[in-house]
């Protein structure tokens, strides 16, 4: 039998490469200066889904929540082999914590309807919480298998999955559908396929078309712009190049569980890391300097 997979992906600021330019004068992070990247573990989640489609047939649908720019990661998914891409974008979703995010994603997954697997990366590098996967599983009333490393067996409506639990591994048998979070050690994500890049580089969500029309026809009336967006949309639709775009109404989300209202955790205070230069003992990088330091450490019983 074939399997339908949904993969949740996220565009994140590249927190691993924060350079001096990304720090403002007051010591806070200038997020705008950070490149936006595909959350690394989500690529492994996508690969796990594509591998299932390859072995058994089926579909791979990718889903992201974010601003219009998040279409970039959806296109990347299409380049790598995804069949269908969906953007959930809505200002009312801003300031969602992990609980509100998982609620919104669960409503989108429900709207997609048919699925056997929901894959997520274990965690996103901007928050490192690893909470959305298990919370999404609970919202969908699915069993969860975190820290996926390998699909051991898949037949009928049952999967056996090997998971890495840090100090060892175990194999779980779960019924489908199931939510799985994937580790970066699980697989090697395939690169974008050149042929698919040629085809899907023109894929757009409506919100992107609107931005492009605005830039191309700055003097047009609102009605003219609207007509132009509709025209472009129709042309892309005919070629299967539209990225679907849903807002909170489209997925019938109850607003009390979304955004700030739906988020029990609030940020009370944020402190940027101020580097304290309290001073250290400078040691000359010479034999003499180092010998002196080692001597001090021996004298105070730190070593030896």
């Amino acid at each position: 039998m074939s399997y339908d997979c949904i993969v949740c992906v996220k565009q994140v600021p590249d927190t691993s490469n924060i350079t001096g330019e990304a720090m403002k004068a007051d010591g806070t992070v200038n997020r705008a200066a950070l490149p936006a990247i595909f959350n690394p573990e989500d690529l492994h989640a996508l690969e796990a889904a594509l591998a299932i489609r390859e072995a058994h047939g089926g579909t791979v649908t990718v889903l992201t929540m974010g601003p219009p720019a998040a279409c970039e990661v959806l296109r990347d998914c299409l380049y790598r082999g995804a069949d269908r891409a969906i953007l959930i974008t809505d200002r009312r979703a801003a300031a969602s914590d992990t609980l509100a995010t998982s609620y919104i994603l669960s409503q989108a997954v429900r709207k997609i309807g048919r699925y056997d697997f929901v894959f997520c990366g274990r965690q996103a590098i901007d928050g490192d919480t690893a909470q959305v996967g298990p919370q999404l599983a609970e919202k969908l009333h699915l069993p969860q298998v975190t820290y996926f490393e390998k699909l051991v067996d898949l037949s009928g409506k049952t999967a056996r999955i090997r998971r890495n639990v840090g100090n060892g591994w175990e194999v779980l048998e779960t019924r489908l559908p199931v939510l799985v979070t994937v580790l970066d050690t699980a697989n090697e994500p395939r690169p974008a396929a050149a042929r698919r890049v040629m085809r899907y580089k023109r894929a757009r969500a409506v919100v992107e078309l609107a931005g492009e029309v605005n830039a191309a026809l700055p003097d047009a009336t609102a009605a003219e712009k609207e007509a132009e967006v509709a025209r472009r949309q129709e042309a892309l639709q005919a070629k299967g190049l539209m990225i679907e775009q849903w807002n909170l109404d489209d997925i019938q989300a109850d607003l009390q569980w979304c955004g700030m209202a739906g988020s029990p955790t609030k940020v009370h205070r944020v402190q940027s890391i101020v580097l304290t230069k309290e001073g250290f003992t400078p040691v000359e990088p010479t034999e003499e300097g180092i010998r002196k330091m080692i001597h001090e450490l021996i004298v105070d019983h730190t070593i030896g």
Partner: protein
Amino acid sequence: MIEVNRKGEVWVFAEQEDESLNDVSLELVGRARQLADRLGVKVGAVLAGWNVRELSYRLIAHGVDHVYHVHDTRLEHYRTLPYARVMCQLIEKYKPQIVMYGATPIGRDLAPRIASELKAGLTADCTDLEIGDYTDPKSKQVHKDLLMQIRPAFGGNIIATIINYDRWPQMATVREGVMRMREGDPKRTGKIIEETIEFNDFDLAVKLIERHREARKVNLKAARIIVAGGGGVGSKENFQLIHDLAGALGGAVGASRAAVDGGFISKDHQVGQTGTTVRPALYVACGISGAVQHRAGMEESAKIIAINWDKDAPIFGVAHYGIVGDLNKVIPMMIKAIKERG
């Protein structure tokens, strides 16, 4: 949803595997005791498993007043759904105000599942927990005695304090090793309360087929001396220098995320926010720039030596000895100096 219950206890999920308590659970009990004393409430611990009742006494010795013990063969090995059922039912029954979990693979799998079911807040990977007041900037309403959940965020470049004043319990996972484990007092007394939980078919839908545990090969937490290498070491081959210095000092080998991502060494050597938190007697940071996520994992070391060619590297901000220079030259000089003294 659980209503705000200011008389509620401070709870710890007592994580055990193979009839042995995870250290982090006892670390959390120590902090739970402090928080509970501040709030004037009791400390509770949920201990679930099969034949683990004996562990209750260790929990009590470390500061627990009430152990909620669930003895069930189906809980012998951790599985998400039945453990989530245990926690959700007991939280609904006793309404603790705070619930803490170790930020272990188990805690990070379990806690979000529970938070979602209870529609409660959860903060991941806290490095500190305090009690404090919060004034809503808009309504001016004062929320007293909240749990301040402190964690690095944004790749460790900021420290955020998270609160949750309306959807309780206040829950957090806490990094292993950041809270000091206190000495237990075997004379301390507490109550063991036996609980029985009903499971439905869904709770038991996932079966454990095979299970394999290995002793942790790298025990950074127990090491007195750690020599750690970062991206500045440059290559896997060059990382031998780090091994050599660790050998000369009789220490363990650590690494920053950059070194692990660069493939110089395996992830179980990683120190920092996503690795192990350590506090050895001596920490030698070689070619580590000192991103906050790394420093969060080692800055409490008694002595820190930083070696980096960049005099502005943040690692020098926490160092006791700073060597601005080329580690390829400095490390061999250190090894030589140690051997000559030895």
